[in-house]
C-alpha cells in the first residue's frame, strides 16, 4: 500500500508583502482543493504580519528532511505545481546516486581471497603424528 512520504506543507508568507501575492492567491483559490486531493498531507497556512523573510513553502518528510522552496513572485499555478511535485517526492536528498543497486550480502559462495584456489595443505595442519 502506498504511503505518501510528505508529512506536512507549511506555507509561510506575509499578508502585506508584494512578492507574496501568488501565495495569497494560492491560499484563496487552490489550497483547499489541494488539501482535499492529498488527504494524507497536512497543509499549514501561517501568515506572519509585518515585513519578514521571503515567502517560503516548507515541506517536511517522514525521514526528517525539511525542504524550503521560495515562492516569492510566483503565480498561483506555479505554486500548485511546486506543491504537487513536493508531494510526489520522498525525503531522500537529491544528489547523484553512485550505483543504482545495493546488496548487503554480495557474496553467496564466499568472497575470493588469495587462498581460495590454493590446495588446502597450505593452511590446514593435519593431526601431528606421535613419534613411533
Amino acid at each position: 500500500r502506498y504511503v505518501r512520504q510528505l508529512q506536512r506543507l507549511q506555507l509561510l508568507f506575509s499578508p502585506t508583502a508584494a512578492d507574496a501575492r501568488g501565495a495569497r492567491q494560492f491560499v484563496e483559490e487552490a489550497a483547499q482543493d489541494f488539501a482535499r486531493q492529498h488527504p494524507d498531507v497536512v497543509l499549514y497556512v501561517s501568515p506572519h504580519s509585518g515585513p519578514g523573510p521571503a515567502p517560503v513553502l516548507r515541506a517536511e518528510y517522514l525521514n526528517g528532511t525539511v525542504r524550503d522552496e521560495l515562492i516569492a513572485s510566483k503565480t498561483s499555478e506555479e505554486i500548485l505545481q511546486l506543491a504537487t511535485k513536493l508531494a510526489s517526492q520522498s525525503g531522500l536528498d537529491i544528489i547523484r546516486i553512485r550505483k543504482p543497486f545495493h546488496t548487503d550480502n554480495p557474496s553467496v559462495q564466499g568472497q575470493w581471497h588469495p587462498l581460495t584456489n590454493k590446495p588446502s595443505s597450505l593452511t590446514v595442519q593435519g593431526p601431528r603424528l606421535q613419534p613411533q
Partner: protein
Amino acid sequence: MVVLSAARWVRSRLTDRFWRVQEVLKYARHFRGRKNRCYKLAVRSVRRAFVKSTKARREKKRFLRALWITRIEAASLEHGLKYPAFISNLAKSQVELNRKVLADLAIYEPKTFKSLAALAQRRRQEGFLAALGDGKEPEGIFSRIVHHH
C-alpha cells in the same frame, strides 16, 4: 517583475554578487591551492574540471572494460586457462555472459567461476578433438548448439 522608472534603473546596484560567486566556488572547494578560494582562478579550474568530466565519460567505459578483462584474466589463470581461450570457448558454448558479470562472479562466486573455467576447458578439448581427431569419434557434447528461434 519589478518595474522601475528609468532614472532609478541607472542607479541600481548589484546586490547578489556573493551568491553568484558562491555558485562557482562550491564546485571548487576540494581543489588544491588558491583555486579553491579565489574566484578568478576558480572559474578557470571549474570550467576545465567540467570539460574533463564530460570527456572522461567515454574513457570510463574503456577503462572499466580493461579492468574487467584484467580481473577475468587473473581468475582464469588461477584455473589454468588463458583469457583468450576462456572467452572464446565460453562464447562457443553459447554462454553469453559479459565481462562485467564474469569479473563480479570471479570475485564474489569463486566456485561458479571455477565451473565456468572447467566448461571452457572442456569445450576447448572437444574443439581440439574435432579439429585434429578427424571423423570417427562422436561429436563433443558441449559443442552442441541450441537454436532459439
